[in-house]
């Protein structure tokens, strides 16, 4: 029952996206122009630590921008309709899943553009990609919950940043640790504890959202 609800809600979001296409295009343009600005201002990066920090900072801001729209792009009355036909758990899980798909696509494209402009520093691609995907997953789930909280206030966009940065910081620092290992001699086996920690963090976020989201939407 929950799974069918989630399936239809995700399909609804994907269809809506393909129809309107402004969210994904807007966010892609945002990422590309940010990378281009850093390309112009840095001229050349020779240091893998700088490459890594810059990449993740761009990813963080792109994620906050992409996910913050989750609960505000549709009208209040339409959201009310969703709540009458679906359970709140299905709504939050479907939003997370949809944002994960969005973030996954976005992060891979970001990697592509970033490496082509800023130089190729990644040594261990499997490790880097797995940290990227776990990162997208983590950003998507934590930020979706924060977006749900922020959407209930009068000042959505400013609060989104304020509320989310402390909460995603543990995720971001762990991600940067794994990916900086992937830029040098790090191996999959040597970093498995960080990947497991990331996965656990994601599970914690999803469990918390599952329990807490029902308190958010009703008025």
């Amino acid at each position: 029952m929950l799974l069918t609800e989630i399936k239809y809600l995700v399909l609804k979001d994907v269809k809506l996206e393909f129809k309107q296409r402004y969210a994904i295009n807007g966010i892609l343009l945002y990422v590309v122009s940010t990378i281009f600005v850093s390309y112009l201002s840095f001229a050349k990066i020779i240091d893998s630590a700088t490459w890594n920090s810059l990449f993740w900072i761009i990813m963080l801001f792109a994620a906050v921008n992409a996910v913050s729209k989750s609960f505000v792009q549709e009208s209040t009355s339409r959201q009310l309709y969703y709540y009458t036909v679906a359970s709140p758990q299905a709504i939050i899980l479907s939003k997370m899943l949809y944002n994960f798909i969005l973030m996954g696509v976005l992060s891979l494209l970001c990697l592509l553009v970033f490496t082509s402009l800023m130089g190729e520093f990644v040594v261990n691609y499997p490790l880097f990609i797995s940290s990227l995907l776990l990162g997208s997953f983590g950003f998507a789930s934590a930020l979706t919950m924060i977006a749900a909280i922020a959407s209930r206030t009068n000042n959505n966009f400013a609060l989104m940043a304020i509320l989310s940065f402390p909460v995603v910081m543990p995720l971001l620092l762990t991600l940067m640790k794994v990916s900086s290992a992937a830029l040098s001699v790090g191996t999959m086996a040597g970093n498995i504890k960080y990947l497991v920690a990331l996965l656990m963090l994601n599970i914690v976020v999803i469990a918390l959202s599952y329990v807490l989201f029902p308190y958010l939407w009703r008025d």
Partner: protein
Amino acid sequence: MNGFIKNNWWKLLGVAFILYSIIAGFLIEVPDLPIIRQSIRNLFFHVVMWFSMMVMFGTSLVRSLRYLSTFDIKHDVYAIQSINVGLFFGIMGIVTGMEWANFTWGTPWTNDPQLNGAAITILAYFAYLVLRRSIDEENKRARIAAVYNVFAFVMLIVFIGILPKLSDGSLHPGKGGSPMTVTNLDITMRLVFYPAIAGWIIVGYWLTGIRVKMDKIRQHLDNPE
């Protein structure tokens, strides 16, 4: 007089513990360790602040959970006031820690997992205060703030509890090259350390109670009905 003692003995106990920890903290013999030297006495103040902060934030978490299960606005008032008191302890913890770090490590702030964790915890709770300010309706504010409180607390516990263990390189005792840990504290130091923790936690609860009463009075003055 009897009634006063009966109702307020715990407050007097808290004040006595704190006074004792301040006086004894400066007078007792402490082990003379390299680098730290006499600054080890800061343990009675700095570490105690973090303990008290975590207890206050923990109390606030419990209050938020109780609010979500009962929807009694009383719990929300306790949750926010515990956080206010906890933030006071947190800021004091940072100030005393920077003083100590300046003496032993030569700089008030280093890129240490423990320090970053503390800073981000404080930031998260300031964000909580901003979140509360941005919602006007009382019950909605209480509910949403409670949700954020639970969410942030769990994330930060993960952060402070698990991440420093994954990363090796903290300057704090027991994690890096520093010589002392709380577990092998000198016995005389324990005699000051534990009462200091108890004293500050008691005073923390007392402060919370006073702030809750102030809040009640202020609301009454705003709308006397």
